[in-house]
């Protein structure tokens, strides 16, 4: 028996087995590609943003359970949210992953929901990159949409 329950929580495996919002969106939705060169994971994030709101989002690509589950959870939480909320959640998530410091500017009342389950990843530093791949790609997509 393994001690991996922390990493592979049921909700993570659920998102991995039944990913939400998996697929593509046709233009004018934007498509942003991300990759983790070390392990070969690749992801595409499709974004339909209008009036400062993420109206729709999809992801495709391949990767390990953590990167796939994290992307799935991400789409679930950001869909329908205003951009400011999306960015705040992303920031909060990166703080959870210990790759961004809490500079006090993030509202403390942000609910991460399912995503909290990913905090076990922190104990496995090499997997942090997997967990944030989708998020970083999303942020890149938002940056290019808003310009």
């Amino acid at each position, binding site marked *: *028996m*393994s*001690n*991996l329950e922390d*990493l*592979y929580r049921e909700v993570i*495996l659920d998102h991995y087995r039944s990913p939400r919002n998996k697929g593509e969106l046709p233009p004018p939705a934007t498509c942003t590609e991300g990759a983790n060169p*070390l*392990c*070969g*994971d*690749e992801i595409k994030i499709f974004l339909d943003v209008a009036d400062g709101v993420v109206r729709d989002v999809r992801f495709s690509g*391949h*990767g*390990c*359970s*953590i990167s*796939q589950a994290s992307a799935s959870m991400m789409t679930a939480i950001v869909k329908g949210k205003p951009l400011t909320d999306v960015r705040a959640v992303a920031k909060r998530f990166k703080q959870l992953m210990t790759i961004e410091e809490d500079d006090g500017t993030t509202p403390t009342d942000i609910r991460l929901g399912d995503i909290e389950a990913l905090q076990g990843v922190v104990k*496995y530093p090499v*997997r942090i990159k*997997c967990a944030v791949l989708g998020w970083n790609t999303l942020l890149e997509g938002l940056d290019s949409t808003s310009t």
Partner: protein
Amino acid sequence: MTLDVAALRDEFPMLSRRVGGKPIHYLDSANSSHKPNCVIDAMSTFMREAYSPIGRSSYALASEASNAYEGARSKVAGFINAYSPCEVVFTKNATESLNLAAQSWGRANLGKGDAIVLTHMEHHANIVPWQMLAKEKGFEIRWVPLTPDFQLDLSSLDQLLRGAKAISFTSMSNVLGTINPTRELCEAAHAAGAIAIVDGCQSVPHMTTDVRAMGADMLAFSSHKMCGPTGVGVLWAREALLDAMPPFLGGGGMISEVRLDDFTCAELPNKFEAGTPPIVEVIGLGAAVDFLNRVGMTEIRRHEIEMTNYAYRALTARYGDAITIHGPTNPELRGATFSFAFRDVHPHDVSQVLDQHNVYVRAGHHCAKPLMRIIGANATARASMYLYSNEADVDALVDALDDVSSIF
């Protein structure tokens, strides 16, 4: 006679490391091998009792150290049956050796209208240096494809070699384990008027190497995969070829004369060893060669064939179709390196679960992305063995895969 693996393991201190109170099972030797005490001790004893700059200083300790350094060169030359020690150039790793081949030989010999041949199973170290140069020089890169059973498809080799100036290929795939017919490839190259460059990283540590019998023109390999230290690699090449090649790195030691307006090169092998070499590491590599000779390369190869058989049987007996091994099935045609897919579980997850059982395999593209694309995998898990690998390592792998099944 087979290896006394238990006794050999005692010579590798890392193999008795425990993690979480339990023994470790190191199955990543294709990536880098562990070091026996004799290598570690040769390095630290040298630093404690005999360290000195070499070559450029003339006092007694300096010539003692130079002799030790050159002695290691002779050992390496003997290990691969080189014609002369001056054909052995010490680099920092096999990657530098291959870059040296590309930047020195290639830059001098390849231009528009020229072509070289690589294979679909090359490591990035034998692809990117050529791509970098091709971008600049505009020559063509042609590729030897694979057969469905993970061998090089040699049916169109002569055609690919027509008009090519070189073929550069791996003697053993670091992903598939496939052992390539180096001699046949070298002969075909020569028949076409091309030179043959062999990436020996995966074969030199595991079986007898004879550059003369092979007929190669250059051979690159790394110390750290053959029980030696990090920080040193080898480029062997025929003397006439090295003589004709322009220098690669410029600096102290590689020159004969320097004026404000020009310089002239030193003799071989100094010409290609600019700057202070990895003195301690070369001494360590010499000790590693002694160690491998003592163990016996024939015996190492035989042991790895046995381990290959054992692993094949154990894995397929337990998991049948749930495991797919990317590579030749005949143990005589392959090394003890297994890339595999386990059910539809991502290799990263496989290795994570195995890690929890102290079973250390590598997951990823193994620096062979073109090959990964060709075999249709984005990544694989890879278990690779060496002279110190034993049945307990394989058993631990097989058992731990059960846990992968239970989680995913």
